[in-house]
């Protein structure tokens, strides 16, 4: 795939898949299994990533029921920049049928940057119930945190400058072929 000189690919489709496989194994190792585990994707790109993690968890531990343990957590109404950025239409929130009280909830997003999305997600989660533990899994950590937040599972650490943009392109969201998925950095 060709790009303009300012865009560089930092992960290709196989890299994304391998990173998710490793994160799934890390989660199982950290939890010593999948008992009480729920996976919550943050719209939009966190949702398909969470679904893929769920499928991988189910193949590692057949006891993991991705049907009842997967969900989506929209954070639109909890953002701290609602007054300054254009109004957004909220995305659907769907909670795992297993419930979130007492569960180990793994939040999944594509890129960790300022940490403000995760802050909003923690607030949103508290309005739905009280998980015993909340973890964070991201495909890319690009640095520049503005809040005391860190990820428990990272697909790839990518050092960036603030003026650079990191874009994750996924089949489900961007309408591209699965083989064409990538993470690119634009300078």
């Amino acid at each position, binding site marked *: 795939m060709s790009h303009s000189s300012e865009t560089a690919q930092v992960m290709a489709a196989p890299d994304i898949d391998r990173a998710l496989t490793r994160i799934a194994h890390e989660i199982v190792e950290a939890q010593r299994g999948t008992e009480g585990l729920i996976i919550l994707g943050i719209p939009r790109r966190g949702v398909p990533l969470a679904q893929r993690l769920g499928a991988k968890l189910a193949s590692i531990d057949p006891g993991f029921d991705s049907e009842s343990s997967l969900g989506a957590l*929209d954070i639109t*109404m*909890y953002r701290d920049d609602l007054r300054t950025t254009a*109004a957004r*239409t*909220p995305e*659907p929130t769907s909670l795992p049928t297993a419930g979130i009280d007492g569960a180990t909830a793994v939040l999944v997003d594509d890129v960790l940057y300022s940490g403000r999305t995760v802050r909003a997600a923690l607030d949103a989660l508290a*309005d*739905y119930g009280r998980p015993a533990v909340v973890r964070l899994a991201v495909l890319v950590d690009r640095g520049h945190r503005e809040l005391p937040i860190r990820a428990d599972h990272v697909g790839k650490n990518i050092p960036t400058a603030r003026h650079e943009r990191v874009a994750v392109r996924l089949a489900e969201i961007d309408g591209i072929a699965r083989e064409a998925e990538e993470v690119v950095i634009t300078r």
Partner: protein
Amino acid sequence: MRHLLATEGLTYDDALTILDTAEEMAAVTSREVKKLPTLRGRTVVNLFYEDSTRTRVSFEAAAKRLSADVVNFSAKGSSVSKGESLKDTVQTLDAMGADAIVIRHSAAGAAAQLAASDWSEAAVVNAGDGTHEHPTQALLDALTLRRDWHAAHRGSGSSTSPRGTDLAGMRVLIVGDILHSRVARSNLWLLRTLGAEVHFAAPATLLPLGVESWPVTVHYSLDQALAAAPDAVMMLRVQAERMGGAFFPTAAEYTRRWGLTDERLATVADLTLGETQSPALILHPGPMNRGVEISAAAADAPQTRITEQVTNGVAVRMAVLHLLLTGDHA
């Protein structure tokens, strides 16, 4: 969007944005903490120059679910009864720091005048101005209709959420006092924008002058209108308080000719949503005069969506307040 004044002129994209947002707001009602922090620290003023319980309570519930502070100002027993003008009242409320003003007034154009003035920086929501418009009522009706229209037509496997869909092909019949009804006007414009076909059925005395130039099919008999197989029937309230003159001889005659009686309910029960097996819908903006424009059996029928309309009203008003009070113009 800076204000919501009318559905006439509301773009297709803005209408869908409001409906899609309202669809997610509705989910808040069913969860444990029925509150969002979105409008924390903002103030919504309900400025009501006309009696209304349900619309005011609906706006109040919507604002509170978004964590806004709510100030209710009703003209009765206020400085307005001492002769204060709209301008002075609004400037007083503005000085108290209102971020949004929800206004209901007996004069058509009151909300538009407020929005066009420099009396206040607040976002203005029209909650009914005379016989002109009542946009949030039309939006909640559209939300109600869209959910059933989508559910009836979606194939197995397609999304259960009606997000992004419209009312293309739907036929909606509005019955009763069109002349005095801002609900009918707001619905006409919005339903047309969303791709629906609108029919009116009303006695000639209760149709506005020039209705023939509106994009609507007019019937002078309710039975003929029902024979045209509408997908939804919206019964309007007989508004005794707006009727100075004699528009129809007696309430009993109105019921016989224009009411959704038990006999007509049997006709409606045979109608379906388009080509599907789902039943056609019955709506009423409330408050109902049971036994006048709608029989008790029709009001409580399984295809009646009146309580859903009330629930959806809160969701639509949450969506409107959210969209007007967030974003870079706020």
